[in-house]
């Protein structure tokens, strides 16, 4: 298992969103040396009139031709120094097709463009991304609208809550950081109404800082990565505002864990991470419960 070259499934479609996914795939592949599996998913024809009315016609072969054009274009977006393969997948839904592909290729991530438009490069989650965020068996990478891998990733930010799951997320992060030289930052988000409850603020900040200190020391105890580590408590009236109050580098990625509601081995985005996405300007990777990044 350890000798295998890791690979990431990239959910491609011939739109801006598909391009965003490729760019994030490229950025992550550069970081970890993984290969990319560029996948395009087509709906399996079913024996219902919609598909049969055309008289058993070979509509699918036109789709295959089209897929080859689209995938050739997709591959052209991947720089020559990275290894990528292209695949046409038939499944009942795009979501199922991506899961099938990840299972088949033993992929360690599924990377998907978050959605179209949205305000200021932010996330407006599409239905495929949304399904993945609630049931993927492997970590999911989400590219914000318009993301471009114009250089190496400069920092990884690990968003840790105070809940029980954080040591697990740290283990994942430790594995991810092995052999990497990028900066690492631990952040925790604090939602507090500073107008009505100014006194609570100081206590919250202290608690947040204490938690991060614990996280930091735990990390140094388990990881031998010699990278600069910083911490930050983000405060805001809402989690969205707290996220915005942080400084974000151009090519930074955020790592979050799954909610405790997730079934073992599955991704399930929690409420905080979900709201964080609303104002996050950079890509995000969500890790399943009991899973590695």
């Amino acid at each position: 298992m350890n000798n295998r070259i890791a690979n990431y499934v990239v959910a491609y479609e011939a739109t801006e969103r598909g391009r965003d996914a490729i760019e994030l795939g490229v950025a992550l592949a550069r970081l970890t040396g993984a290969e990319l599996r560029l996948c395009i998913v087509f709906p399996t024809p079913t024996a219902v009139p919609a598909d049969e009315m055309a008289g058993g016609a070979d509509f699918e072969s036109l789709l295959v031709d089209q897929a080859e054009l689209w995938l050739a274009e997709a591959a052209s977006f991947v720089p020559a120094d990275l290894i990528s393969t292209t695949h046409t997948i038939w499944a009942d839904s795009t979501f199922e097709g991506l899961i099938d592909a990840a299972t088949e290729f033993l992929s360690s991530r599924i990377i998907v463009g978050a959605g179209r438009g949205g305000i200021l490069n932010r996330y407006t989650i599409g239905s495929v991304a949304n399904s993945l965020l609630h049931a993927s068996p492997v970590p999911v990478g989400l590219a914000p609208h318009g993301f471009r891998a114009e250089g190496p990733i400069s920092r990884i930010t690990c968003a840790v809550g105070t809940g029980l799951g954080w040591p697990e997320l740290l283990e994942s992060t430790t594995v991810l950081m092995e052999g990497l030289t990028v900066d690492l930052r631990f952040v925790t988000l604090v939602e507090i109404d500073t107008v009505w409850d100014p006194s609570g603020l100081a206590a919250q900040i202290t608690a947040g800082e204490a938690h991060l200190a614990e996280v930091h020391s735990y990390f140094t105890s388990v990881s031998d990565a010699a990278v600069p580590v910083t911490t930050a408590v983000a405060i805001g009236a809402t989690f969205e505002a707290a996220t915005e109050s942080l400084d974000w580098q151009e090519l930074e990625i955020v790592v979050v864990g799954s909610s405790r509601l997730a079934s073992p081995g599955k991704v399930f985005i929690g409420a905080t991470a979900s709201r964080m996405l609303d104002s996050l300007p950079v890509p995000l990777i969500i890790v399943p419960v009991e899973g590695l990044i």
Partner: protein
Amino acid sequence: MTTAPAAAASDSDSDFDGPNPTTGITKKGLSAGSIGLIGATVVGISCIAPAYTLTAAIGPTADAVGTQIPGIFLVGFIPMLLVALGYRELNNSMPDSGTSFTWATRAFGPWVGWMGGWGLIVATVVVLSNLAGVAVDFFYLMLSQVFQTPAIADLAFNVPINILTCLAFMAGACYIAYRGMSATKSVQYVLVAFQLIVLVWFSIAALAHVANGTAFDALAFDANWFNPFAVPDFSAFAAGVSLSIFIFWGWDVTLTMNEETMNPKKTPGRAATLTVGVIFALYLLITVAILMYSGTGGGEFGLGNADIQGNVFAAIAGPIMGPFAILMSLAVLSSSASSLQSTFVGPARTMLAMGQYQAFPKRFGSISPRFKSPGYATVVAAVVAWGFYAVMRTLSTDVLTDTILTLGMMICFYYGVTAFACVWYFRAQAFSSLRAFLFKFLSPLVGGVILTVIFATTIIDSMSPDYGSGSNIGGLGLVFILGMVLLLGGVVLMLLMYRANPAFFRNQTLKTGSSLDDA
């Protein structure tokens, strides 16, 4: 799994742990062996959409052949069967999204092929508008039954409201088709079972009225109804057969299901037989029941009443089923709504193929990157079908009757072209074996000749202002004018397309040939 050749150069030395990355998840098409006899029969019945078909076709058929409806339905199946046999041979030999268009082009060259494709598109667009029209009528009828306010049903007769409601239905169905969504197997089973139950219930209720002496215009059963040759004249016979082709339209798909069935050698044939058996039994039961209940007179609920002919169940389900008539509304509404959505697929895919072969402007050949459906073609089909409906609804009070008659004409046209394409394409093999002779030569030839005769007769007869609903423009029957506008409009568009981009017409994109070239 298809791996794009250009992009996959780096694939060879990558490391897959799976036994074979090219298996399993990427099978194109239906998973083999997923459909049994019942499943295939359900698909067949669902494509025919009996509840919708009957309400739209019984009236015009009664108008043409009087009490001989059961007989004409029986005989009308023959050309459908003959052509479908040839259709199956072509589909096995050259599966292609363009169906009639591609096959006719391969056999007869670009000009005939283009018109064959045009005929298919026009027929399906006309049926889309008719489906939506029936759905609109039943929508308001059902609302009036739910709220027990008869006035609501009359909203369907208000032309602007009717046209706008139709637009809403059309937009909804187009959106679903554009998104590439379709009903799941279980939904389909439920819809088909529901239709069958309601139609049988309706027939039994009608016969009960007859037995109790409460029928509207009781007509004694007569075995002669089943005799197609008792139709008064050939014109009536031709009109009846043309309508019968419409009522079996969709049946042919059971023949084309192959790999996806559990036993490809036996299942499609058995399913086609079972489907046609069920459909025959149902159609005969219902037509006999309606004849015995309503008679063919011109009274309020009589089959001869032009006001109810375009949508018979809407008028007579109430008196026959009483409060349970709402079930009939539901059955027809669900049947026409699901057909509306699935019928979009045919013309959209033909236009897609025509776009890709440059027989249509290139945009028609585009596939939606998000939904992987023929996006542009689907939207165009919806806009044109709705436009057609809006014009027709304004022109003619009995729009449904006339569109069904026009539709029969269009189906005869493109089925005829397809049948002859089969004969010509396989000409070299026609006498190579008994099977080839029967399926590749004789069946399509006879089918094609029958359809040609019906088509020609319908064109000549429909010139009379009395034809169909009796709507006419300048003394020419509306059905004739419609048919000519649609066909000649196709010729004009074809010439325009030739001027814009002659590549297809010069045999550069799709070559004329015969089965020998592919051997």
